[in-house]
């Protein structure tokens, strides 16, 4: 571990140190506010350590991690996302949970650590360990409101299914390792590209690993957990699952298959194509008549990752519109929308329950104009309508798809985004339908704090800004990509 490596790892080290410092603080005096502030400070410190890490050369840190521009971009993204998630969770916990609230931040930080580890790893061991750190912290986070039964139920479901899929992942890795002889990503990929077509065990191993990827990204055959877990888990945790955890895995997926052109090996291409197509259709069809907003967002995130897989399949062959650039832009815009949406759900909740049902949003326009403007901006961005970053993201994916002539996938994507428009509009329709007097009494009146109000405004403005003038972000993504 030379001085360089130390400086390179500084962001991760700071992130790992923060929970320790917080535990010390808890030991002195258990105070919710201090814990929250400390975790935010820790995250900002890690964020500011990123430039330092960027300019020290020598990317490979021991054979486990590779801290290149790509990884650092995702670091920054994760840190910001977690900071944005912490703010509403503070208010959420104050409102909803009576017990000790400090463990929440510890688990959140370790989960971020896991996800960041994923983004930076290029070795099976670091991949598996980061994945497990992320999963273990999420088990507890999902079931955090332990007196609520559906929380425990969601936690159990998530645990069992995550354990099964990581078992599959391990078994796949062992098969690959038995053939390749090394656990480094680049050796595996070289081995696969040379003799991938006749060494079936390695391909079978990769196919089994796809289960691990698929489960975390909640794409079709492995998607069934996500609606129940999103519904059971507290709103900020569902935001975290939907954004940071999926982001980490996606970064790793792209790094793993970076040099390996998916289109060459027919089995992998067919598997990924099938997964993409089915997750698009299943995600959209299931969300069509969904009346619970959280489950609707779960299904729509399944569909959105179907779209991202299209960009992944498009790969990086085409010089102008690389698949990885399109996916990264999509992820950024997706982060903003999904975190914002779940934050609003978190705000519209009271002691007993969260504002999950569609009827809670009836006539929101006329009760809380600004909150509903933000939510409809999010919905339009998810639907991919201009003036929002969702449109540019979808356009970017379409461009990368067309540049590599994936016509069938593109047509399916078009049909699905038309389907998607329907249920996003249903939410906006719910919001601007007028509500009569006695109904108004039963509705949950949202209590929007100042801080989360500002944060929501910042998110919406970022959304529209990326929609109208995305050159800044595109530039930084193109620089960061390998």
């Amino acid at each position, binding site marked *: *571990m030379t001085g360089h490596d130390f400086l390179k*790892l500084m962001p991760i080290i700071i992130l*790992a140190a923060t*929970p320790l410092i917080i535990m010390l603080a808890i030991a002195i005096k258990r105070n919710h506010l201090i814990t929250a502030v400390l975790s935010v400070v820790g995250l900002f410190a890690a964020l500011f350590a990123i430039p330092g890490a960027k300019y020290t050369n020598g990317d490979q*840190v*021991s*054979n*486990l*991690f590779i801290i290149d521009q790509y990884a650092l971009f995702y670091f920054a993204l994760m840190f910001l996302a977690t900071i944005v998630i912490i703010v509403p969770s503070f208010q959420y916990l104050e409102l909803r949970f*009576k*017990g*000790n609230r400090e*463990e929440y931040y*510890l*688990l959140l930080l*370790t*989960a971020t*650590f*896991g996800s960041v*580890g994923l983004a930076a790893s290029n070795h099976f*061991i*670091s991949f598996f*360990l*980061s994945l*497990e*750190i992320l999963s*273990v*912290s999420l*088990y*507890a986070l999902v*079931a*955090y409101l*332990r*007196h609520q039964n559906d929380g425990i139920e969601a*936690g159990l479901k998530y645990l069992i299914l995550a354990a099964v899929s990581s078992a599959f992942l391990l078994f796949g890795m062992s*098969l690959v390792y038995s*053939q390749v002889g090394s656990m480094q990503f680049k050796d595996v990929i070289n081995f696969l590209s040379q003799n991938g077509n006749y*060494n*079936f*065990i390695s391909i*079978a191993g990769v196919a089994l690993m796809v289960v691990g990827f698929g489960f975390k990204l909640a794409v079709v055959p492995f998607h069934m957990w996500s609606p129940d877990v999103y519904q059971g888990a507290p709103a900020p945790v569902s935001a975290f699952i939907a954004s940071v955890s999926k982001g980490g895995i996606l970064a790793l997926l792209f790094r793993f298959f970076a040099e390996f052109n998916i289109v060459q090996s027919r089995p992998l291409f067919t598997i990924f194509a099938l997964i993409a197509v089915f997750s698009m259709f299943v995600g959209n069809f299931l969300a069509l008549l969904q009346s619970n907003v959280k489950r609707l967002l779960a299904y729509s995130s399944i569909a959105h990752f179907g779209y991202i897989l299209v960009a992944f399949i498009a790969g990086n062959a085409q010089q102008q519109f690389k698949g990885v650039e399109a996916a990264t832009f999509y992820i950024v815009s997706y982060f903003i929308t999904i975190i914002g949406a779940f934050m609003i759900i978190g705000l519209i909740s009271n002691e007993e329950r969260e504002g999950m049902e569609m009827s809670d949003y009836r006539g929101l326009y006329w009760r809380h104009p600004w909150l509903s403007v933000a939510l409809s901006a999010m919905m339009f961005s998810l639907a991919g309508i201009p003036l929002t970053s969702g449109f540019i993201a979808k356009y970017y994916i379409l461009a990368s798809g067309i540049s590599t002539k994936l016509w069938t996938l593109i047509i399916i994507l078009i049909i699905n985004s038309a389907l998607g428009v329907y249920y996003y509009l249903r939410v906006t329709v719910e919001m601007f339908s007028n509500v009569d007097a006695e109904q108004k009494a039963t509705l949950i009146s949202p209590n929007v704090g100042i801080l989360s109000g500002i944060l929501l405004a910042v998110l919406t403005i970022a959304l529209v800004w990326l929609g109208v003038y995305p050159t800044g972000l595109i530039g930084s993504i193109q620089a960061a990509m390998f």
Partner: protein
Amino acid sequence: MTILFYIAALIAIVASIMVVTRTNIIHALLYMVISLLATAVMFFLIGAPFIAAMEIIIYAGAIMVLFVFVVMMLNLGKQAVEQEKRWLSTEGWYFPSLLSLILLLEIGYLIVSGQTAPFNGRQIPPAEVGKELYSTYLIGVELAAILLMAGIIGAYHLARRKKYVVHRFLKTEGAEQ
């Protein structure tokens, strides 16, 4: 020596099958321990003595003991057995097992079709494992540490029992501490 290996393998497989099919949870746990011990023997024969030891100490020793402890704490023992019988018989278990059998056959076919390199069987002493562990995979160890920390925090938070203040007449919920 190879015969010994096959015997151990056989015991391990049979034990794990027994674990899955037992109605009584304690019997299942015991079969599990036997299967772990059999795997330990296999490790030893392959030339990974350190891992064999770890398996026995940590896996069989710590984790299974934890299981037994929790089972005792929730005294699931007797009355759970009939419930198990009812659950086991009624449940249509044909389809899932058929599914995984086909999967097993396919994986087996793939493995068998692979080239069968001879086993060079070098003995890897624990020292070498340790040296490797703390030189190239040092960060791996720290990751494992953070993983365990997360596990502890999670387990601590979830397993807190609510203290029951049971009054004779007002059955109030204990203060959540």
